[in-house]
């Protein structure tokens, strides 16, 4: 650490590395919390495997669709409906599971943001290589004086870190939600094509 200080001091915007480092540690802490509260539990594991199975089964049934007799087609439709409803139910259970740790993770992120805000309020932590559009500037110029829109505040850097680091960390650790669940239980569930 002593040797690092002179190196950091030579950079005008060394604070940006501090923000990134803290964000990375925060991401690790959040994933550790999620693992403790959710991913290590056997109920989550069984739920995830059932979602995977239902999702794959559904895909197989939908693609494997030769021109068959009328009765076969009707029974296949019923089977598809059954698997789909099972998938939706499991996805809803998964959402409830995630809500529990989501609250704790949100609290951690909020506390860290407050900490960084107190450290870097009004301070330019980086220089943007572009002029942000108005809606972005509100975030990137938050709490800064002056009118140079290429000045970058801690808030914008923290936002970029949160999205890129946490998303990739989850992917890397295998914690991202199953795609079947994301499709079925998403914010905007797709309308059932059979009802249209």
């Amino acid at each position: 650490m002593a040797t690092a200080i002179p190196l950091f001091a030579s950079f005008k915007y060394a604070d940006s590395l501090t923000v990134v480092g803290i964000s990375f540690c925060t991401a690790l802490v959040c994933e550790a919390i999620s693992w403790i509260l959710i991913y290590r539990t056997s109920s989550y594991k069984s739920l995830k495997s059932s979602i995977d199975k239902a999702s794959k089964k559904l895909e197989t049934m939908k693609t494997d669709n030769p021109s068959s007799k009328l009765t076969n087609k009707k029974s296949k439709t019923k089977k598809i409906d059954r698997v789909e409803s099972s998938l939706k139910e499991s996805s809803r259970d998964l959402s409830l599971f995630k809500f529990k740790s989501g609250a704790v993770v949100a609290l951690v992120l909020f506390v860290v943001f407050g900490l960084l805000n107190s450290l870097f309020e009004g301070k330019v932590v980086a220089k943007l290589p572009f002029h942000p559009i108005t809606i972005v500037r509100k975030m990137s110029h938050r709490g800064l004086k002056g009118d140079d829109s290429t000045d970058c505040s801690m808030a914008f850097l923290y936002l970029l870190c949160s999205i890129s680091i946490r998303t990739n960390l989850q992917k890397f650790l295998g914690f991202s939600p199953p795609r079947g669940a994301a499709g079925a239980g998403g914010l905007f569930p797709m309308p059932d094509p059979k009802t249209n």
Partner: protein
Amino acid sequence: MKESKSAKLNQLQQQENHQNAHLSPSKLAKLFDPDASWDKDQLGDVLHWIRQVVGLISGLLWGSIPLVGGIWIILFLAISSGIVYGYYAMILKVDEEDFGGHAALLQEGLFASLTLFLLAWILVYSLAHF
């Protein structure tokens, strides 16, 4: 037709059985094999990581030169999308309809890649040129 489908299912099961195995030469070969069969999750993961690598490299490159101006964000998005499209359409030759269409494949990892690119670009630009 049915024989090829059952063969694909067998391949999928074998892949699932070996999914915990370490990275092997056959797995690397699969990344460039147009005849290999792909699970939706697997292809999605591969496209995701391709986008992240392209984003990181582009950010480091843009920041080092340095390239300045919002136009380079558009150029990055075009380049990374072109690379992803070229990979799954020309190297792997997959039928995109089996995986939800072009939009679903091109969206994979897009937003995370954009934020990673911006992060790398801003950091290298700020630290190396001021």
